[in-house]
């Protein structure tokens, strides 16, 4: 493969092409909307959004294979005076966001049938993904905050999209209130870090701390903890997790899938970059706070709380919402074990792999819920009784998602959880390893309840599946196939993730 940007085949700025493709598509949707504002032609809008998302995913996949921003082709590409950076990790996550977006836009084609304001829906979705793609490449606290807001503000509106539905509005309000609170905590943390170091660029902050010029370690420490709080909100981790069940349950199901997969991954990529580049453990320990300890506590609490709460739910969507909190805890392991890890890039890489697999299996599971809502099936476990007799293919895909989420070797979730476990034991983090095993075993219990309802219980005959919507089916089946393919073809993914993570150390 020819190295693209470093060998002057393409100009440097083209490294941002995945994000630019998303932004351009959002603007194209605005133009379509301004030409024909009352259009109910969802085919055109969904088609344009899907093409944009697939183009973005394709470009980031191509760049990953060609090695853009990897150490073998000359290292990370810094743009705009080092405010943005494109490296393996940024491209890896851009691929995750764009694939989730493609699945969700295809599914929304059926889900939004007959709804007004569809152009706004799709353009908000594209803009939110643009913000996430920029979060993946943010290299300064300033761009981190701006892109975080670009990802958050459209999400608030998307959750409250069904504006005559009280559940959706309530979810939007709660998501917005917690979001506004935590983004002000985040920006106050940034201002304290700036007060202590006088820099906003990540690498420059680390230099100032290492040289001992930082003003006051106390101020710096409080600032770092507040940044942890801001990141915890975006990833739906303890202590800022309580918006998640409400927002995911009330929002339209495709939006829930989008937020719980892509938005969570965006929070993680920001955390990975901020904490490994701006506050590396060897520099920060002894000066201010050891964030490894903070993340260990958060990881254990998040996993345990998410899984125990999920086990007590009676509606499927809310169960998935709590399970998504539990998965945030698994992904936090990568950050938590960094201090003791023998192979740091493997530990961080394992979290990245988990977020990629999670992007497919969790989005798929939420899209199955969207399919059930489309059919008018109820929300509780009992309402899913006997669904497999009428929709065997979709139920097979859902079974793959659920068992893969639990970590059984039927989807890629098995490998990513196994690698997280290896990373935790490799760092002698026995508490994290034990929490991972216990919680995965517990999660198998509540995921099996859905599978049992679908396949074993007798249908009560209260509903009839009348139609098989093409878009939703295509999205669910694609997600199922991808989840399964990640089980058999996990080698390249893990190699890419580990290489990409190695760039940060």
């Amino acid at each position, binding site marked *: 493969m020819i190295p693209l940007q470093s060998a002057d085949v393409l100009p440097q700025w083209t490294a941002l092409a995945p994000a630019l493709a998303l932004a351009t598509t959002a603007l194209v949707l605005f133009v379509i909307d301004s030409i024909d504002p009352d259009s109910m032609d969802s085919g055109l809008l969904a088609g344009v959004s899907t093409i944009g998302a697939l183009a973005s995913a394709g470009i980031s996949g191509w760049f990953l294979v060609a090695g853009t921003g990897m150490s073998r082709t000359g290292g990370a590409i810094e743009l705009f005076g080092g405010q943005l950076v494109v490296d393996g990790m940024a491209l890896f996550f851009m691929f995750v966001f764009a694939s989730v977006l493609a699945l969700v836009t295809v599914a929304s084609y059926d889900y939004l049938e007959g709804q007004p304001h569809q152009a706004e829906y799709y353009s908000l979705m594209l803009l939110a993904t643009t913000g996430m793609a920029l979060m993946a490449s943010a290299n300064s606290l300033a761009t981190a905050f701006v892109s975080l807001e670009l990802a958050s503000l459209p999400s608030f509106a998307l959750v409250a999209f069904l504006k005559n539905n009280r559940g959706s509005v309530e979810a939007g309000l709660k998501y*917005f209130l917690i979001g506004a609170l935590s983004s002000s905590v985040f920006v106050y943390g940034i201002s304290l870090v*700036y*007060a202590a170091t*006088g820099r906003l660029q990540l690498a420059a902050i680390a230099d100032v701390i290492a040289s001992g010029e930082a003003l006051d370690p106390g101020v710096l420490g409080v600032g770092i903890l507040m940044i942890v709080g801001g990141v915890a909100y975006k990833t739906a981790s303890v202590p800022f997790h309580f918006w998640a069940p409400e927002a995911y349950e009330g929002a339209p199901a495709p939006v829930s899938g989008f937020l719980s997969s892509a938005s969570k991954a965006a929070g993680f990529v920001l955390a990975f970059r901020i904490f490994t580049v701006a506050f590396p453990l060897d520099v920060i320990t002894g000066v201010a706070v050891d964030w490894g300890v903070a993340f260990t506590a958060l990881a254990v609490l998040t996993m345990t709380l998410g899984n125990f709460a999920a086990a007590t739910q009676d509606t499927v969507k809310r169960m998935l919402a709590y399970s998504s909190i539990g998965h945030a805890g698994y992904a936090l392991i990568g950050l938590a074990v960094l201090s003791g890890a023998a192979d740091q890039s493997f530990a961080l890489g394992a979290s990245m792999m988990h977020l990629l697999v999670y992007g497919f299996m969790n989005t798929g599971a939420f899209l199955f819920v969207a399919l059930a809502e489309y059919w008018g099936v109820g929300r509780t476990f009992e309402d899913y009784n006997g669904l497999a007799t009428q929709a065997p293919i979709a139920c097979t895909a859902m079974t793959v998602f659920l068992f893969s989420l639990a970590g059984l070797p039927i989807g890629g979730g098995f490998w990513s959880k196994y690698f997280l476990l290896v990373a935790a034991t490799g760092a002698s983090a026995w508490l994290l390893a034990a929490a991972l095993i216990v919680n995965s075993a517990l999660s198998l219990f509540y995921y099996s309840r859905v599978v049992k309802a679908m396949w074993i219980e007798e249908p009560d005959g209260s509903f009839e599946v009348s139609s098989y919507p093409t878009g939703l089916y295509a999205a669910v089946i694609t997600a199922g196939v991808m989840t399964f393919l990640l089980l058999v073809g996990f080698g390249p993914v893990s190699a890419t993730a580990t290489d990409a993570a190695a760039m940060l150390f």
Partner: protein
Amino acid sequence: MAVPAEYYLVLSAGLFCVGLFGILTRRNALIFLMSVELMLNAANINLVAFSFQWGNLTGQVFSLFTMALAAAEVAVGIGIILVLYRNFEDLDVTKATTMRW
């Protein structure tokens, strides 16, 4: 005659706490929004004061971004509060409880 930097930290921390207190105790969604504004402006005080202290413009420029984003956040927030009022006939954030909190 420059004011010592610590005074600015105390001022901004005070403003931040006023905002946080408002969020924790008030139930009107609009007051909630104003409290968030106070917290964001507390960050701006720090950014501008320490921009002067460190002798670079980074903090001042970033505070302009923060103000613009605060305005954007209010725009989205007002929209959501409007649909809240239409659906629940109230601005009380504790009244919107169709789901378990």
